[in-house]
């Protein structure tokens, strides 16, 4: 980096700080509000720090929804979907990157095209397919159509294309089956990309709303936490209890946050080791 005048540097830093505060603010507000009383949360001018931090709303969440069950449902949906996406993306990405077969490029083009379809377009047809399989109203119905993902395959193909062919051939000569080549040699070589995809998929499928709502159709014991939050909103005949909703939202956000912190440290590690490789 070239040396900058002190003033420019100061301006840059304040801009970054301002942006960070702006993005962190709603999050902070959510957490703070969850500790307020209902009356405190509605006061004008707003109260920043609750007078007496109360955990009451957290207790109340479980009275209204099955918070534990909902979190578990979310975890099942996000984890299984992410696992499925990783496996299918790595395998299909490897095939697209390293196998020569008839129609490969056409197939890949079609898949790229699918990537640009807005999910809303496929909502109804997918729903009908899932219904015909008798899976509506079940977690299986929520998970199954998302086990493969065009973007994931695309991402993996791009990264795996950069893995040297010799490395793959060395593993074959060493006696590795194709599956073994993919998961013991190729996958470790593209770990940072896999971590990025895992994070992306987990957060996306943790937060997804429309598809589970469509499939589960009021089977509320199977609701993921995001759908249950909706029930917190409408609880008490529309008179919103802000601390209650905020407590629910805080609970909902914790697992992906932990996931992010865990994977982020891992990214940095693998990026450093890749840079050192020389």
């Amino acid at each position, binding site marked *: 980096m070239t040396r900058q005048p002190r003033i420019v540097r100061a301006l840059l830093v304040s801009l970054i700080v301002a942006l960070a505060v702006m993005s962190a603010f709603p999050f902070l507000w959510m957490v703070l509000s969850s500790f307020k009383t209902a009356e405190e949360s509605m006061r004008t001018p707003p109260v920043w720090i609750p007078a007496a931090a109360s955990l009451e709303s957290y207790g109340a969440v479980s009275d209204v929804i099955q918070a534990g069950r909902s979190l578990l449902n979310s975890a099942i949906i996000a984890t299984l979907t992410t696992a499925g996406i990783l496996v299918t993306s790595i395998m299909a990405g490897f095939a697209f990157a390293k196998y020569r077969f008839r129609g490969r490029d056409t197939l890949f083009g079609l898949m790229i095209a699918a990537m640009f379809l807005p999910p809303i377009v496929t909502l109804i047809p997918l729903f009908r397919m899932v219904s015909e399989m008798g899976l509506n109203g079940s977690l299986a119905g929520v998970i199954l159509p998302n086990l493969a993902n065009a973007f994931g395959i695309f991402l993996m193909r791009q990264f795996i294309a950069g893995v*040297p062919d*010799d*490395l793959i051939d060395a593993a*074959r000569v060493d*006696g*590795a089956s194709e599956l073994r080549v993919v998961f013991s040699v190729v996958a470790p070589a593209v*770990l940072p990309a896999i971590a990025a995809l895992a994070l992306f998929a987990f957060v996306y499928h943790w937060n997804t709303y429309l598809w589970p709502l469509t499939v589960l159709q009021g089977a509320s014991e199977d609701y993921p936490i995001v759908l249950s939050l909706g029930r917190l909103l409408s609880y008490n005949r529309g008179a919103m209890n802000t601390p209650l909703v905020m407590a629910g939202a805080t609970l909902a956000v914790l697992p992906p946050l932990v996931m992010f912190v865990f994977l982020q440290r891992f990214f940095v590690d693998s990026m450093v080791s890749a840079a050192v490789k020389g």
Partner: protein
Amino acid sequence: MAGVTLTNLSKAFGATEVLRDINLVIEDGEFCVFVGPSGCGKSTLLRMIAGLEEISGGDLSIGGVRVNDASPRERGIAMVFQSYALYPHRTVRGNMEFGLRLSRMARDEIDQRITRAARMLQIEGLLDRRPSQLSGGQRQRVAIGRAIVREPEVFLFDEPLSNLDAALRVDTRREIADLHRQLGTTMIYVTHDQVEAMTLADKIVVLNGGGVQQTGRPLDLYNSPANVFVAGFIGSPRMNLIPVTVSGRTLDAGALGRFGLPADLGSGAMTLGLRPENLVLHAPGGAPATVTLVEHLGNEVLAELRLTNGPNLVMKQTAALAVTTGEAVTVAPGPDLVHLFDAAGARVHSWPLARG
């Protein structure tokens, strides 16, 4: 241990034929080198033996068993790649044991083999390092170690020294020769470097344009090249190839002079091959020439001469014989063998040239 036999082996990528009718017998325990310019198909041929490239036609057998359709692991081979191809996320030990663990070998046996190979290659201190922490030479040793521990029937080397610097290349070359002597295993080695081929091989296979040009022991190839291509490829600097006209028992080499032939070798336009080391300066009756370039290599001198009204010649002499650029000299063939090739490039005869 096993020999390798190639029978009418061919390879095509779509409509492009890259190798055709390769016939070759590599004896058990032999060190065989495939040599040729880039694009001649030598690496493809090696990869076909390894099972990494499909065989389009013909038969391949290892140890007397036809292995055309066998996977690499069923062929009893181990391979060392030019790029080393070490698994970057595994330690040196992890790299060496990967193949053994896949074959579900007992832990004790794996450890024994790794210890033995590491001692042989002097990489005992590196076993817990990762490839990124090793120098190029060390990486290549690990790659060789990974091949050794598998105790294969046949070792395959694909230009293993190309990524090493010159000094290391010479050392590693000697180590590979030592390794062959110690293990006595069949080795097939691909290189574009004829010096590596000459120094390592029991048998050299010269490939060009998808076919075998000549097969033989290094000195046989040097002394009796089958054709113009082999003549030019084996030996450094390359053999001087001079267009000549033959009629009866006379050879007209243009500016170099006229010479007698030992027998009637046909007539017409042919090519005369003269090694750079088989030229003498200031010989009585030599052809006039001008020195256009002098390269001092320490113990010897390479000089480029332009014959007056004739082609350029490269000569190699001991350092004692000093010439300078621009100097006028006379040059004549020395007492060693020269080679005559017919219009199609095939060798017709080799003999010590006498002035006629």
